[in-house]
């Protein structure tokens, strides 16, 4: 245990911001920047893809469905390799690992997030669309003012979950030498050589703390949204009338 604290004390700066200012920004800072920008930029893409997938226009729906299936069927690592190869070829100049990772995340998380948004849209009662149409709204009008606001609000916890996944996906940047937290940990390990367990233990714990905290926040958000959707509490008389013959038992479980 002592050696763990020693390692953290000696290397906390590297773990936090990588080799900056003697190198690019790395460590936890890079991980968080990649994740936040990745998910933020993926968001508009995901809405566009979700709209395409729920669109009545076949020429829009099929290619996008194909894209989403391909992205879901291929490992992220493979997609990273593709981007690493295609991006410089298309742009005509070399691209840093960080940029490659960011673009891959935008595409990858965009596709997964679009499934979440699509689920949110499809979960709304049909009556919402019908009422919007009856009031004379066009497609974009009712999406903008009626459908999407509800769908996105309801899916906030799932979107937050996707953000947590994104944080975990940034670790794959290690394979193309992106200087995020996992890379930093490996650097430390390659220096120390004698305490690999302690180093990777620190790495695991760090991710655990970050993701666990965010997961707890997601649960709290879920409860908040569920309560808000239920509306206020029922008056006592209505509650009593709804109660059936059996009050809630406090006795033994049946099994």
């Amino acid at each position, binding site marked *: 245990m002592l050696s763990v604290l020693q390692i953290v004390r000696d290397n906390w700066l590297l773990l936090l911001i990588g080799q900056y200012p003697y190198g690019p920004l790395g460590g936890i800072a890079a991980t968080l920047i990649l994740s936040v920008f990745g998910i933020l930029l993926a968001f508009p893409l995901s809405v566009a893809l979700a709209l395409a997938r729920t669109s009545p226009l076949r020429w829009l729906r099929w290619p996008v469905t194909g894209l989403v299936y391909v992205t879901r069927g291929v490992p992220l690592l493979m997609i990273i390799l593709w981007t690493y190869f295609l991006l410089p070829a298309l742009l005509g100049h070399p691209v840093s690992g960080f940029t490659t990772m960011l673009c891959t995340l935008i595409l990858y998380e965009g596709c997964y997030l679009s499934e979440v948004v699509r689920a949110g849209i499809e979960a709304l009662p049909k009556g919402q669309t019908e009422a919007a149409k009856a009031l004379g709204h066009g497609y974009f009008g009712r999406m903008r003012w009626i459908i999407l606001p509800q769908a996105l609000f309801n899916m906030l916890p799932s979107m937050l979950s996707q953000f947590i996944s994104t944080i975990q996906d940034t670790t794959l940047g290690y394979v193309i030498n992106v200087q995020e937290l996992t890379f930093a940990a490996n650097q430390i390990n390659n220096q120390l050589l004698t305490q690999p367990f302690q180093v990777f233990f620190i790495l695991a714990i760090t991710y655990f703390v970050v993701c666990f905290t965010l997961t707890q926040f997601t649960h709290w958000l879920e409860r908040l949204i569920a309560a808000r959707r239920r509306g206020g509490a029922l008056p006592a008389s209505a509650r009593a009338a709804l*109660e*059936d*013959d*059996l*009050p*809630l*038992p*406090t*006795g*033994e479980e*049946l099994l």
Partner: protein
Amino acid sequence: MIVFSGVNKWYGPYHALDDINAEVKKGEVVVVCGPSGSGKSTLIRTVNRLEEIQSGSLTVDGTDIQAASNRGSALNRMRSRIGFVFQSFNLFPHLSVLDNIALSPIKVLGAKREDARTKALQLLTRVGLANKAQAYPAQLSGGQQQRVAIARALAMEPPAMLFDEPTSALDPEMVGEVLTVMRVLADEGMTMMCVTHEMGFARDVADRIWFMDAGRILETADPEAFFRAPQHPRAQRFLSDLRSH
């Protein structure tokens, strides 16, 4: 056959069953009725120990269901000897209708597979659903599902049958088919205890009515007497509420 003696039950501070003393005789059909929250469902669920009682004794067919030896396999054996029909049917959705009925005789009573399936088909014919043997519960209407549930309980050859609001979850046009099955059972001499709101059924089929409120049996009478002139003021109010719509 079913004897309640000083039975009491509490949910925490709430006195759900208050000093119940009553008996369902062999071959008798007893209908338990009363307002919502009166404890009638709780009462019927104590008979096969889906609910536990805190004091008093409950005897079914001579066996004290509270006896200490009534744990584990003895409890299961006791339950298998009392038929129970639920308000929400609770058929097993992953099994065909025939298997729903045949499963428990095979697994609990140790019947041979062929015998159990033959008997199941006979019971299905009795409830009028022989052609649905290979169907799955989700493909049946509510009334059909409840009839299968009755057949499933009968397959265990119990000496007594308990019905917990068997028609309350059904659409009105399906209530009749289930009540018909219950009527036939009663005519054949089955000992039955029913919690129900179907007063027509109670009037025609029951041998005795138990009226409950707030965990107590306030009045027991034969149906004619009860419906013509209930004694207890609460019963009078209950019946006039029923009639007023």
